[in-house]
C-alpha cells in the first residue's frame, strides 16, 4: 500500500518533470542564449558576436544594443505600429468571434459539432497556402476586384493588396479560430437559466447580456484576446506577404536584423524587448484567471 503510494508519487513527479524538462531545454535555455547574445557586440566572424567572456576570463557584456533600440526612433515606431496592428486584429476577432461562438454554443448538439468542425477545418490546409489564397482574392486583378468591375460597381481596381487593410484581413482571418474556441468553451458551459432568471427579474435581453453573459464570458474573452494578440504581435508572414513595403512590423525588423544585417546581438535585443512587451498582458491574464477561478469555482 505504502509502496504503491510512493510509486504513485514517483510517477506524478515524472509526468510533471517531462514537460518541464522539455520547456527547460527548448525554451529557457535558448532564451538564455538569446539574452546572452543581446548583451554582446556584433563582429564579422563566425558566430557573428563577441564571446560572453573575454580573453582574460572577465565578463564582456554591453547594453549598447538596448540603448540603440531606445535612441533609434525606427524601433519605437515599429513596436507601436505592431501593437496597434495586433490590437486592431484582436478587436476585429472579438467582434466577429463573439457572435459566432455564441451562436455555436446555442446551436443544437449536431449542428454544433458541425460548426466547430468548420471553425477548425482551415487548419488542415497549410497556413502559407491560405495566405497566398488571400493574395489571389485581394490582388488588383484578383477575384474581388474582377467581380466588382464585372458587376459595374467600380471601373478601376481598388488597391487592397499591400495595404494595412490586407494585413488586418490576414490577421483576423488567421487568428479568428483562436478567439472563437476559448469563447465557445466558456459560453457553452454557461447555465442558460441565468439569462432567463435575469429577464425574469426585469432585465431586457440586452441588459441581461451585459449583466450576465458578458461578465461570465470574461475568462474566455481574455484567453481569446491573448491568443490572438500575442502571435499577431510577432507575426512575420502575413505582413510580409500582404502588407505594403512601408508597413514595417516588429517581426519583419527581427528577421531583417538577423538575416539581412546579420546583427545578431541587436536582433536578440529586439526579441527580448518584444518578450517584455508581451509579458505584461500575460501577467494580467494569469491574475485575472486566478480571480475568476476563485469567484466561480
Amino acid at each position: 500500500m505504502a509502496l504503491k503510494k510512493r510509486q504513485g508519487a514517483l510517477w506524478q513527479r515524472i509526468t510533471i518533470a517531462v514537460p518541464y524538462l522539455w520547456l527547460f531545454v527548448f525554451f529557457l535555455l535558448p532564451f538564455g542564449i538569446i539574452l546572452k547574445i543581446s548583451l554582446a557586440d556584433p563582429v564579422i566572424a563566425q558566430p557573428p558576436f563577441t564571446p560572453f567572456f573575454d580573453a582574460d576570463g572577465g565578463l564582456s557584456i554591453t547594453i549598447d544594443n538596448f540603448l540603440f533600440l531606445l535612441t533609434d526612433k525606427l524601433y519605437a515606431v515599429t513596436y507601436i505600429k505592431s501593437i496597434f496592428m495586433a490590437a486592431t486584429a484582436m478587436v476585429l476577432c472579438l467582434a466577429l468571434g463573439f457572435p459566432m461562438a455564441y451562436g455555436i454554443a446555442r446551436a443544437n448538439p449536431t449542428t454544433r459539432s458541425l460548426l466547430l468542425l468548420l471553425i477548425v477545418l482551415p487548419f488542415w490546409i497549410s497556413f502559407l497556402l491560405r495566405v497566398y489564397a488571400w493574395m489571389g482574392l485581394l490582388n488588383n486583378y484578383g477575384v474581388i476586384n474582377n467581380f466588382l468591375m464585372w458587376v459595374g460597381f467600380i471601373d478601376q481596381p481598388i488597391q487592397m493588396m499591400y495595404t494595412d487593410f490586407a494585413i488586418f484581413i490576414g490577421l483576423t482571418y488567421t487568428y479568428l479560430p483562436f478567439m472563437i474556441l476559448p469563447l465557445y468553451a466558456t459560453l457553452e458551459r454557461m447555465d442558460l437559466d441565468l439569462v432567463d432568471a435575469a429577464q425574469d427579474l426585469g432585465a431586457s435581453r440586452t441588459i441581461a447580456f451585459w449583466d450576465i453573459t458578458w461578465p461570465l464570458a470574461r475568462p474566455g474573452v481574455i484567453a481569446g484576446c491573448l491568443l490572438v494578440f500575442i502571435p499577431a504581435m510577432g507575426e512575420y508572414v502575413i505582413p510580409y506577404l500582404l502588407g505594403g513595403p512601408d508597413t514595417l512590423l516588429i517581426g519583419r525588423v527581427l528577421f531583417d536584423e538577423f538575416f539581412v544585417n546579420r546583427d545578431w546581438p541587436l536582433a536578440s535585443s529586439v526579441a527580448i524587448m518584444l518578450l517584455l512587451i508581451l509579458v505584461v498582458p500575460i501577467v494580467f491574464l494569469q491574475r485575472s484567471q486566478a480571480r475568476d477561478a476563485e469567484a466561480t469555482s
Partner: protein
Amino acid sequence: MQKADYDSENLSIVTDKSEAFIRIRGISKKFGDFTAVDDVNLDIGRGELFSILGGSGCGKSTLLRVMAGFETPTAGTIEIDGVDITELPPYERPVNMMFQSYAIFPHMNVEKNIAYGLRKDHVDNKEIAQRVDDMLELVQLVDFRERKPNQLSGGQRQRVALARALIKRPKVLLLDEPLAALDKKLREQTQFELMNIQDELGITFVVVTHDQEEAMTLSTRIAVMEEGRFLQVGPPKEIYEFPETRFVADFIGTINMFEGKVNRVGDETISVESAEAGTSLRALGNHDVEVGQSVCIAVRPEKIFITKHEPDNDDDVRIRGVVDDLGYLGNLSLYRIRLESGKMIQVSSQNRRRSTKRFVEWEDKIWVSWRPRSAIVLTD
C-alpha cells in the same frame, strides 16, 4: 357522483370561476411536431399554492415557462389579475420564477443576487437596502449577505433563489421543482418553510413537481398532468381518494387494481365480477355504468383490513389470501398478500400496539376485507 357522499367538508379553495386570479385558456405549445402542452385550461385562485404534478416530459415545465414568458404559446391566452399577459416579455410580467437549478448569478454575492430585480426596476437605493434586509431576514441569511454563491450550501442557495424571486413582490411566484435538489431531511423542513412564507406574504404560488408527496403536503390544489394535458385537478385529498383515471390512481400513492365486468347496477351500489379478485366486488355509488361494461375496481392499501378469521360483516368485500411477504417500517407494516386467484395485492396497517410480536407470519392463511365505500370505480 360518488364524491358527493363524503364531500361535506368543502375541499375546494377556488370559489367562483369569475374570481380566478390566474386564468389559462386553451394554452398549447408545440415544438415542431411535438405537442408539449395540449389545450390546457386552468383557473387558479388568489393566494393558492397550486401544484402541477407529472412525470418527466409531461409538459409541466413547459407550461411553467409559458407562464413566465420564456416560451410563446402556440395558442391560447393567460390572464393574471384580469390582465392578459400572453404577449408580454418575461421582464414585464408581474410574475417571478424560482428555477430548478436556482440560477443564482455566480459572479454576484448573496446581497447583489437578491437586490437584482429591484435594481432593474430602478428602485431607489434606500428602499433596496431595506427590502433586501427584510428578505435576508425572512430566509434567514442575514449573516451570509457578503457570501459568493459558491460558498453556500444547497439549502442556502435555495433560499437565495427564493428571496431573489420574492423581493419584487410578484403577483405570482412560479417554482420549478423547488425542493428536488435538497436531501430528504432538508426537503421536509423547507417544505414547511415554503408554506409559511407563502402564508405570510399571500403570494399565489404555482409549483411544478414530479414528487407526489411534495405536491400532497404543499398544495391547496393539484393538477395531474400527462402528455401535455391535465388529467385531474383538485385538492390533494380529492386526487388521492377520488382519482378519475387509472393513471391518476396509479401515479399518486399505491393502489390495488382489479379488472372486471359490471354484473349488477343497483341504486346505491354496483357489483363487478372480477376474475383477478376471484369474487364479485361491490362498490358504493351509481357510477353511470352499464351491466357488462369493463371497469376497474381500485383499493388503497390502507383501506384494506387483514384478519385471521373471516370477518362477519356481510357488507364488506372479503377475499381469502396468503401472506407472501411482510415488512415492518416502524409506524406502518406493509403486507404483500397472494389472493387465491394468484393476484398479489398490497396492504398496509398502522402499528398501533406496542409489541415485538408479529400479528401474522409468512405463509399464514388470512382474510382481506374492505368496505364497499373504499372501492374506487375507474371506467377509463
